[in-house]
């Protein structure tokens, strides 16, 4: 899987690429409009992470360029400007998702995961992981073909963990992921613990292997 990170803040671009490299992604970095334009016109990427505010041009221009050439690359906008208008404009031109800075790398990874999954034609609606099967359409989880009774929040949590497998997700990232729009107001991550606990219990009761590891109460990891 090839990913292009269009971001002029090199430190951020490097963090993103080294986080994603852990999951068999190949990352390239473009730090200017020109650089990005050249790369986009030459290669195909499964996903492009696009910063809108670049020193030598607007990321939205690149989006228009992609649309004009009818390219199928998935695009996630990463912007410092968390404005509804920008979001709507970006999605209209052809972006697949919009993520406002600052974000957790785990959140980004989960979004990429879901974007790439949606773009794959063969296996859109199901994720298979050893004895675990997740049906994305009906939002059902099966262990060895037995249904696991799971709440919506726990389902989201499971997908989030699997979207970041073998990497540690911070409690804060989980809390923000589960809070959605409410994340701006959250200041208490205690509820994360009980959701993790419940999910773990339910999976284990269904005789699923315990994949969820806790890292010193700071983070969680789906260990494959």
């Amino acid at each position: 899987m090839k990913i292009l990170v269009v971001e002029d803040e090199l430190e951020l671009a490097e963090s993103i690429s080294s986080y994603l490299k852990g999951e068999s992604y190949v990352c390239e970095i473009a730090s200017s409009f020109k650089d990005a334009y050249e790369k986009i016109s030459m290669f195909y990427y499964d996903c492009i992470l696009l910063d809108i505010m670049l020193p030598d041009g607007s990321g939205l221009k690149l989006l228009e360029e992609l649309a004009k050439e009818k390219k199928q690359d998935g695009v996630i906008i990463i912007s410092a400007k968390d404005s509804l208008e920008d979001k709507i404009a970006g999605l209209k031109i052809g972006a697949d998702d919009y993520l406002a800075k600052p974000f957790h790398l785990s959140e980004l990874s989960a979004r990429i995961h879901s974007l790439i999954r949606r773009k794959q034609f063969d296996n859109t609606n199901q994720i298979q992981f050893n004895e675990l099967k997740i049906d994305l359409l009906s939002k059902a989880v099966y262990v060895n073909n037995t249904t696991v009774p799971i709440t919506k929040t726990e389902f989201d949590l499971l997908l989030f963990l699997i979207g970041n497998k073998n990497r540690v997700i911070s409690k804060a990232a989980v809390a923000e992921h589960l809070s959605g729009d409410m994340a701006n107001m959250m200041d208490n991550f205690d509820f994360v613990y009980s959701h993790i606990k419940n999910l773990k219990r339910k999976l284990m009761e269904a005789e699923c292997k315990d994949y969820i590891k806790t890292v010193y109460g700071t983070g969680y990891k789906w260990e494959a």
Partner: protein
Amino acid sequence: MGSMNRLLNRTLLYYSLFATLILLLSSPFFYWMMEKLYIDDVDEAIMLRRKEFDSKNRDSLTTAQIIDWNHFNRDTKILPDTISKPKEHIIQEMFFDEMTPEWEPYRILYSDVIIQNQHYVLMIRLNLIESEDLIKTLTWLYCGVLFVLLLIIFFITRFISNRLWKPFFNTLNQIDHFNIEQHQSPVLVTTHITEFKQLNKGISKLINENLKAYQSQKEFTENAAHELQTPLAVFQSKLDMLLQDPSLNINQASILQSLYQAASRLSRVNKNLLLLSKIENNQYTSREPVDLAKTIHDVIPYFSEQALSRNLTIHTNISDAPVLNACRPLVEIMINNLILNAIRHNRNNGSISIKLTSEEIVIGNTGELQKLNTQNLFKRFSKESKLNNSSGLGLAIVKQICNFHKWQVSYEYKKNQHFFYIML
């Protein structure tokens, strides 16, 4: 503000007071002056008559004629030298007049005369009674004229003042209706009066500078918040990378946990500041029908989950389902902020009540048994509680959203509960 405190009315009040005072004081003075002048006149006439007597009658008169003289002269009499009155200067005395009949004031001169070597007293007097009537009439006339004059001046002053001060009141009215948040400097009516021109110029300058300062302050907040997003993103991403380190020990993990919390708080403050400046910059323009009951119902499950860890109970009492023409994202943020506040500042095993009618939203919660300081409650960063991870902007945002929709927000502490009211 009583209408008596208006500039014009004040002017006219003082004017009336002074005019009355002048009228009251000047009338007796006028009367006194008139009287004095008249008496001087009368005295002069008496002296003239005395001179006349000296030159024409004194030498030719015989003692035998005195009776006749006295018989025919009512006001110039020759009396025997037995009168012990001050001589040679004019005094005032009352005499009884049989004709009227009443006591009447006279100016009177006694002087010694010698007729045929005999001493007599010559008395010359003049009645003041007619003059008194005249003076009274004159005084009344004077009063009348003065009163009418003052009355005319009163109305003229009022008329002129009203006209003259018009530009001033125009300006005043404009300033009164000026709202810095609407980004529009008031249009001041041009005037030809130097002072008002100066005033308008000064006010325009002041307002424009204020608008500029306000604008740049707002832009600063927005720009600063935006500029912080990228370094924050770098910071947070580096934390995420650090967390992946397999050699991480428990101490480092707990430091990392604190850093995560600080980063979350920073990003929260930043996002809330951005939200505030967006509302202030009128970047939320869309209005649509918002069903408040549904909005509240939608978030209750989420908050119930939040409330679970502290064993809080949430009571809802929705008696009406008002549909408002409002900005949906802002209404949601407002409701969320209020409920979250009620959770955050609650005590364990406490309760939260949410009431919705067609006129108001009331959110109450148990918590500290003390009224909050209402003065600073809705101000930015004026944190009342000791919880140091709240952003200090929640209520400021609620207030701003209420202002935006022209709703009223208020706080009340009663029956050991804290209540926030939104009057729709």
